[in-house]
């Protein structure tokens, strides 16, 4: 295990391994999302209260999960990078941010589209779940802006890592917001005492969508980290050889 981790932290090894893994993650993710979409839109029966509008759950919940998962990945990697000075960890954090921002945007917008027919409003200022998710979007923007503002990669890594770690308090706030405060947002469906409050015929497509989006996110993240590694290692021999083989030939 440790030798594997050690090998993994070697940039050329990671660069090749990630390239081999991306198609598998992407293909499995697309298959699961394909099944989840068809089953969620056509096989699952309409909800007894929300009718067909509930089908938005199959895209909204995965988007919201990924928006938080990406932040956890970003903050944990940033922390590892700070403590052990591991460059690959900083590359992972930097790669996770734009993806996290996109999925947060998606969670906000699909939630808004769902809220309009169910709550009668697109947005409710002051609602804890909505506000904390919006803060998440701003944390991603702040993280990316900070990185973009510092030219030196090592300094950008350290400064942005501190921001990522401080902002991490927001993640549990998002998760528990619907339990701690009164919110328009409905309570948890899956992770709750007494098990999931949803029928299997509605549950399976949702689990497939969540897992599918996680796999797709992993594939996208590995791709982003490869680009980061390529740039960070631009002066190294292996990158020079890879990008410009004629030089040595």
């Amino acid at each position, binding site marked *: 295990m440790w030798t594997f981790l050690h090998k993994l932290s070697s940039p050329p090894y990671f660069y090749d391994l990630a390239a081999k893994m991306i198609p598998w993650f992407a293909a499995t993710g697309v298959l699961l999302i394909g099944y989840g979409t068809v089953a969620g839109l056509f096989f699952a029966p309409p909800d007894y209260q929300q009718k067909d509008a509930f089908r938005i759950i199959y895209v909204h919940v995965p988007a919201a999960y990924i928006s938080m998962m990406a932040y956890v990945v970003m903050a944990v990697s940033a922390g590892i990078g700070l403590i052990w000075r591991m460059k690959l960890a900083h590359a992972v954090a930097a790669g996770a941010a734009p993806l996290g921002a996109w999925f947060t945007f998606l969670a906000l917008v699909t939630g808004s589209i769902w809220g309009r027919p169910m709550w009668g409003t697109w947005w409710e200022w002051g609602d804890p779940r909505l506000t904390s998710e919006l803060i998440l979007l701003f944390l991603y923007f702040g993280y990316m802006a900070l990185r973009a503002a510092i030219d030196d990669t090592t300094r950008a890594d350290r400064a942005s890592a501190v921001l990522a770690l401080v902002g991490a308090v927001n993640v549990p706030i998002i998760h528990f917001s619907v339990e701690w405060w009164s919110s328009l947002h409905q309570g948890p469906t899956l992770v709750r005492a007494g098990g999931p409050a949803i029928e299997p015929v509605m549950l399976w497509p949702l689990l497939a969508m969540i897992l599918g989006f996680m796999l797709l996110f992993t594939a996208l993240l590995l791709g982003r980290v490869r*680009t980061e590694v*390529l740039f960070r290692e631009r002066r190294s021999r292996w990158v020079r050889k890879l990008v410009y083989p004629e030089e040595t030939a």
Partner: protein
Amino acid sequence: MGFLSMGGYGPYVWTAYALTFGVVIICVAQGRRRHRRVWNDLRSRLQVDTERSK
């Protein structure tokens, strides 16, 4: 074509799905474009360097 109307919620449901797949496509395209750009930048810089050292 009952499923298209989604019991009157069609516009909401279909917009949400379209946006989701749109964002996925943007994420894929953005990642690829960035990789290509970094790759091409490095390559042209190395090319210039070798030309100079000749």
